[in-house]
């Protein structure tokens, strides 16, 4: 027998208090989420006038976009963004996988417990605290330079040197997130059928063979899912971290879309131009994430939604 829903008006009346409760939330979504979304489409096609505000400004069509696409600066920023994202992926993708497998395989429950407890902590530190830690280690008077000097070496200006910027950004992010990154793989590992391991033991397979033939295929879907997710976010290269770590001496290698939008928009008050850049970033980002999701769903059957 088919379940019949009561009339719409009766259902609405039944939930009146719930509507009342979510009313402020709907206003919030409207004002703080959807209105800015709408505003960015308007602003990107206007020339913002400080006196007239958004609505008193003049429409300029695609001018903001032709302006940024004609700038060398923009391509520098774009390439920095993509390079830093890909470096993060290249060096940051495998360490959590390796660590998760090692942790999972450990027979000593004590070591595993203690390590897991400690390894997750840095994830919860703010990037400001992280910069403080990095500064203590890598500044001219920091621990690393003290050690270099003890061995008779010259002080390396790690925080101001363009050649050190990207290695520092990428490695400090790996340091912060390696433990946290293992969690999703640990969950995947526990779902592997344990009879497979028993069978491997009977067949006399060593640990490396076991990892190659059972463990890695068992977490393949998690790997592909996370990989596509990061490829989808290739235009977001970690603005919060870079905003703290970079300085005029390292702009050439460190300035990314997020930091460029911040400086051009809020420091130089180029609202329209900065909005056009960030609209470009969101549009490409949206396409990439939709494609990434579709790819992940097709190859391993796991999507974001």
């Amino acid at each position, binding site marked *: 027998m088919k379940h019949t829903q009561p009339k719409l008006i009766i259902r609405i009346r039944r939930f009146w208090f719930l509507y009342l409760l979510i009313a402020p939330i709907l206003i919030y979504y409207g004002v703080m989420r959807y209105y800015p979304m709408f505003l960015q489409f308007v602003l990107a096609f206007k020339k913002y006038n400080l006196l007239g505000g958004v609505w008193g400004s003049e429409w300029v069509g695609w001018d903001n976009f032709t302006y940024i696409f004609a700038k060398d600066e923009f391509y520098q920023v774009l390439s920095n963004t993509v390079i830093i994202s890909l470096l993060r992926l290249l060096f940051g993708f495998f360490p959590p996988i390796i660590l998760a497998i090692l942790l999972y395989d450990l027979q000593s429950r004590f070591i595993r417990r203690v390590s897991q407890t400690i390894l997750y902590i840095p994830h919860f530190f703010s990037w400001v605290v992280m910069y403080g830690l990095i500064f203590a280690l890598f500044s001219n008077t920091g621990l690393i330079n003290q050690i270099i000097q003890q061995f008779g070496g010259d002080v390396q200006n790690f925080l101001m040197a363009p050649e050190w910027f990207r290695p520092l950004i990428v490695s400090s992010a790996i340091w912060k997130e390696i433990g946290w990154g293992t969690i999703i793989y640990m969950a995947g590992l526990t779902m592997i059928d344990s009879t497979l391991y028993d069978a491997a033991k009977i067949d006399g397979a060593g640990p490396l063979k076991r990892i190659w033939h059972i463990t890695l295929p068992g977490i393949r879907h998690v790997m592909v899912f996370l990989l596509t997710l990061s490829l989808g976010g290739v235009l977001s290269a970690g603005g919060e971290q870079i905003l703290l770590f970079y300085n005029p001496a390292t702009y050439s290698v460190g300035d990314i879309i997020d930091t460029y939008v911040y400086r051009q928009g809020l420091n130089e008050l180029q609202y329209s131009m900065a*909005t056009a850049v*960030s609209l470009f970033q969101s549009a490409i980002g949206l396409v990439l994430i939709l494609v990434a999701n579709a790819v992940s769903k097709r190859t391993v059957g796991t999507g974001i939604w």
Partner: protein
Amino acid sequence: MSERVYQWTAASIVLLITILSLVPLWYVINGSLVNEQEWMEKGGFILWPEKPTLMAYERLLAGTAFTQALFVSMIRTVLGTALTLSMTTILAYAVSRKSLPGRKALLFAVLVTILFGGGLIPSYLVVRDLQMLNTIWALIIPSMVDSWSVLVLKQFFENLPEEMEESAKIDGAGEGRLMWAIMIPMAAPAMAAIGLFTAVGHWNSWFDSLIYIDNAQLHPLQLLIRNMFTNASLSVQQNLGQASYAMNAHNRVSIETLKMALVVFGTIPILCVYPFLQKHFTKGMYLGAVKG
């Protein structure tokens, strides 16, 4: 490779990474515990303080800039978490009610905000036009509802046993009683997790105060720490208690030590709630959300 060799290798690598993830914090804590004399003698190479002193912390707590920033951070964390948690719970409950008219549209509206944001400048302009610049509200209202948490909590509400709902209805409980007296109390563990993560987020955030707050008296701790490291402006450092200058290096702390003490302060609340956090994320609740 034999299993024994593998176990030894695995244990060594895991322990090495574990130690490496402790070293920076260890160094900074020790560096925050020495006077200027010891700092100079060892050239900042402090792996174990010989005469540990809390002088840096006393200096910080004596300065108004620091205590004000601490206060702002505490206010935003408490108010912001309370508001976000209540709003997120209400919305999550609403979209978990299958018979609620308009549920699909609401859910869609929430999902869209995960995929597409308003961007930095438009968000800034809205906060500005609402006259929220230089007020605590600029740090609380823009992040009032977290769409991800809404989905996590919705999932949790949907997984609650349906018999609860049915027996409540048989007992004559209306929708209101069902929500307040039955469903929300049962979601307490999930709400605790979301509350903790929200609180950590509030305590850690600094970028919103950078763009929304000019008035230095309203800066939260994280922004104060950031300014101390990146601006190196003398005024910030003087405000932090260096003004009371002692002649004797035994009674002074170096500026580096003061900075380290600030960083330690930035981590203390995190380390305090960490055991509770760990309980929640090891249960894998956030993973359930990721996998949908």
